[in-house]
């Protein structure tokens, strides 16, 4: 079983993170107060709905932890800028394995499951800035396969950074996997290169999505390129570029599959486009705008960033019916059925949201550069959420040609059925940006952060119960307590 979303993470710029880290580590009064002022939300300490009442700080990494991948019901792997891949037990918080091999930061990680006989065996694939790809066995900690010194077949004048694979996509049904970067490579399960394709963009492939009919969508710069993977008679594979979709006005930050018929992409300027998976037509186009206030509190963070990023779609998640978009520091819930934003919170966090998750149709979770994880609930409220400072966003019906620079704006109040996102709880623990989190359902939640730590959040009640069970089991095993210690 492969968790596809994790395979499509693009790398955040390290410079940004480092900058943020510095900010968090040394918050002088001014910055702090500004952050505070900007913070619209403060839930306080009374959080009855927050059941994460126990935490465990996991140490092991020496640098920013960026990726978390679930291996099975009880294990997950973490990877980050220190090049380490660590395997953890979710129940106990124990570090099970430490896998060393990469000399530089890890840029992507995915699980690769192959079924030999009856038992599926899950391996880990990692891509690193050291221009290598590795296959790890999370049971033994061995590096099973490695391909290093990836060479671009096309000579480039600039540095070889484009040879770094930036995203991974595993096609389970076909037992192949793809790495995207400066070039798109197809590998079989035994780490043999099947075919590769040079791409023509300067940026390289930042995200990959599997589409029906052996197609693959790859996000490159402002375009989405559709490739088709075909197997010839001798079982050799070949890649062919089928279509190039260039409807985004800016860099595509995220690309996700929504359901069998749709996939979605989000761009740096807040464009959310829903695509038909089969014919690659635009099903919906949503432009989420920010208030054009130039008193941008975030600009100081993003030094040197040419564009305001507060409308950048950082992350998209979906459960098939809803799409949750992290736009700057705001959250927007988009319904696929009605093709409208059904709930939103413009300033959900104090800073950019890095990762989101839809827990159910009404509960969601987000983590941000401000170091916190917040839990939200969509509630039907008679009043719109933010009357005082309405956000702006535009809506278009689908159509490919609409590339206006000044899209018409409608007020939210005009939108029927708008719901509100209510903060139900927050998790505070990290002292740096929370890069992402991984939920194990009732077993708990792992968050990883730029502060080199991971935190395992658990339900205190449940843990207490588990400990009691263990206690009585041990009692049984020991046949009572020894009276004298």
């Amino acid at each position, binding site marked *: 079983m492969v968790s596809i979303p994790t395979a499509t993470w693009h790398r955040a710029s390290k410079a940004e993170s480092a900058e943020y880290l510095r900010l968090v580590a040394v918050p002088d009064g001014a910055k702090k107060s500004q952050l505070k002022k900007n913070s619209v939300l403060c839930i306080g300490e009374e959080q009855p709905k927050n059941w994460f009442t126990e935490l465990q700080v996991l140490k092991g990494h020496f640098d920013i932890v960026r990726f978390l991948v679930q291996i099975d019901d009880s294990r997950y792997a973490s990877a980050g800028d220190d090049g380490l891949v660590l395997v953890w037990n979710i129940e106990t918080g124990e570090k099970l394995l430490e896998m060393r091999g990469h000399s530089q930061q890890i840029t992507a990680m995915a699980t690769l499951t192959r079924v030999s006989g009856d038992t599926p065996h899950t391996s880990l694939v990692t891509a690193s800035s050291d221009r290598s790809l590795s296959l790890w066995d999370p049971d033994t900690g061995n590096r099973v396969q490695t391909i290093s010194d990836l060479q671009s077949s096309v000579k480039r004048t600039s540095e070889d950074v484009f040879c770094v694979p930036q995203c991974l996509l595993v096609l389970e049904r076909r037992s192949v996997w793809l790495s995207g970067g400066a070039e798109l490579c197809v590998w079989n399960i035994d780490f043999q290169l099947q075919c590769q394709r040079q791409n023509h963009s300067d940026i390289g492939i930042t995200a990959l999505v599997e589409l029906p009919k052996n197609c693959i969508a790859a996000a490159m710069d402002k375009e989405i390129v559709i490739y088709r993977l075909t197997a010839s008679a001798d079982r050799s594979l070949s890649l062919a570029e089928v279509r190039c979709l260039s409807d985004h006005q800016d860099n595509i930050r995220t690309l996700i599959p929504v359901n069998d018929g749709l996939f979605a992409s989000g761009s740096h300027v807040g464009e959310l486009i829903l695509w038909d998976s089969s014919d690659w037509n635009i099903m919906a186009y949503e432009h989420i705008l920010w208030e054009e206030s130039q008193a941008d509190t975030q600009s100081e963070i993003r030094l040197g960033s040419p564009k305001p990023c507060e409308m950048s779609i950082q992350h998209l998640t979906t459960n098939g019916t809803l799409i949750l978009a992290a736009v700057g520091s705001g959250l927007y819930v988009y319904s696929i059925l009605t093709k409208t934003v059904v709930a939103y919170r413009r300033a959900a966090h104090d800073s950019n949201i890095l990762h989101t998750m839809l827990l159910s149709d009404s509960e969601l979770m987000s983590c941000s550069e401000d170091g916190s994880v917040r839990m939200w609930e969509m509630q039907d409220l008679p009043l719109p959420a933010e009357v005082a400072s309405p956000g702006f966003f535009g809506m278009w019906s689908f159509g490919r040609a609409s590339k206006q620079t000044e899209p018409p704006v409608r007020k939210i109040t005009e939108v029927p059925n708008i719901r509100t996102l209510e903060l139900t709880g927050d998790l505070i623990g990290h002292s740096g940006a929370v890069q992402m989190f991984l939920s194990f359902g009732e077993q708990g939640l792992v968050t990883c952060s730029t502060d080199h730590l991971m935190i395992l959040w658990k339900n205190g009640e449940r843990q207490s119960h588990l400990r009691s069970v263990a206690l009585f089991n041990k*009692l049984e095993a020991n*046949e*009572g*307590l020894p*009276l004298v210690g």
Partner: protein
Amino acid sequence: MSSGYPPQSPAVAKTEVPLDGECPLLAATFAYWDNILGPRVRHIWAPRGDQSLLLSDGEITFLANHTLNGEILRSAECGAVDVKFFVLAEKGVIIVSLIFDGELKGDKNTCALSIILPQTELGFYLPLHAICVERFQHVIRKGRIWMQKGYNIISVLSSEILPVMELLASMKTHRVQEDIDIKDTVLNDDDIGDSCHEDFLHKAISSHLQTCGCSMVVGSNPDKVNKIVRTLCLFLTPSERKCSRLCKADSSFKYETGLFVQGLLKDSTGSFVLPFRQVLYSPYPTTHIDVDINTVKQMPPCHEHTYNQRCYMRSELSALWRAVSEDDIAPDTIIHTDESFTPDLNIFQDVMHKDTLVKSFIDEFIRFPLDNQQLHSIKANFMAYRYARCGRCY
């Protein structure tokens, strides 16, 4: 019960004592320092039985003489009864000697009453040492008066040596074990609030703690008696437990002065005769617990008890002193002739006051039975200790 056996040698008289069961005592001796001949053994008491570890008379004499070695240097107040305690690994024996002055044939002599035990019984004996010594000391006080009057001390000494032998023999078989299984106490699940009334238990434990852990449990049913005995022993230290005795199922033990907790069985008529003098001679006041009718009675507090005890002892000694002839009074009948001291015969009083400490113990204990038997026992031990400790803290 004693004597009637001719001495084996003309020099040393010997009394063989028939005892039920194994007696850890090898022998008791009475010796004195003859100003001409040196140490002389006067009398030997030895348990009669088929015990393998019996000493020959020669050995006994050797050891008894040894107890007086060096006593030529003795400097003690007149009337003092000093204790010497030997562990002679070379001989494998323990000797407890009480050294005192006595008048023999008009001469003042240093005398020694000794008991000899195998060294292997050291652990058994040590907890009982204080009892034995105290009882011997008092009988020696009486014996010295007897000697002063020119009577034979041996009969007086016999009146305590034989009971002590019996006591040691009974402790060999019925001593309370150091580790108590909760199943054998009334804190067992099934018993609480059922066979043992909660209020009664409360009173029993708190009075037991108030009388320094010294209690006698009387009843007709030996199991029931022993359950209470063990329950009370939970609140004692291990060495105090070793100084406690269960009741004997078939035939009742006699009351023994100085034990911490002892179980005693009523006779077939359902009555129990309280040996007033012996209860009074116990170092601590006693709680009297009758498990048949669930009554708890208590002696006066420790300081009062000690005072009464001393008064009584003095009057007993005075009576002896006044006795005209050897036949005038048998050692056990002295009390009635004494006029100067009339003890309050109603020494056992009902326990009136209630404490909260034991109550909360019982509350906590009874209300939360644990499912697991073993845990239950742990809990009981745990809590009993906890409370015993609290009781001491305050």
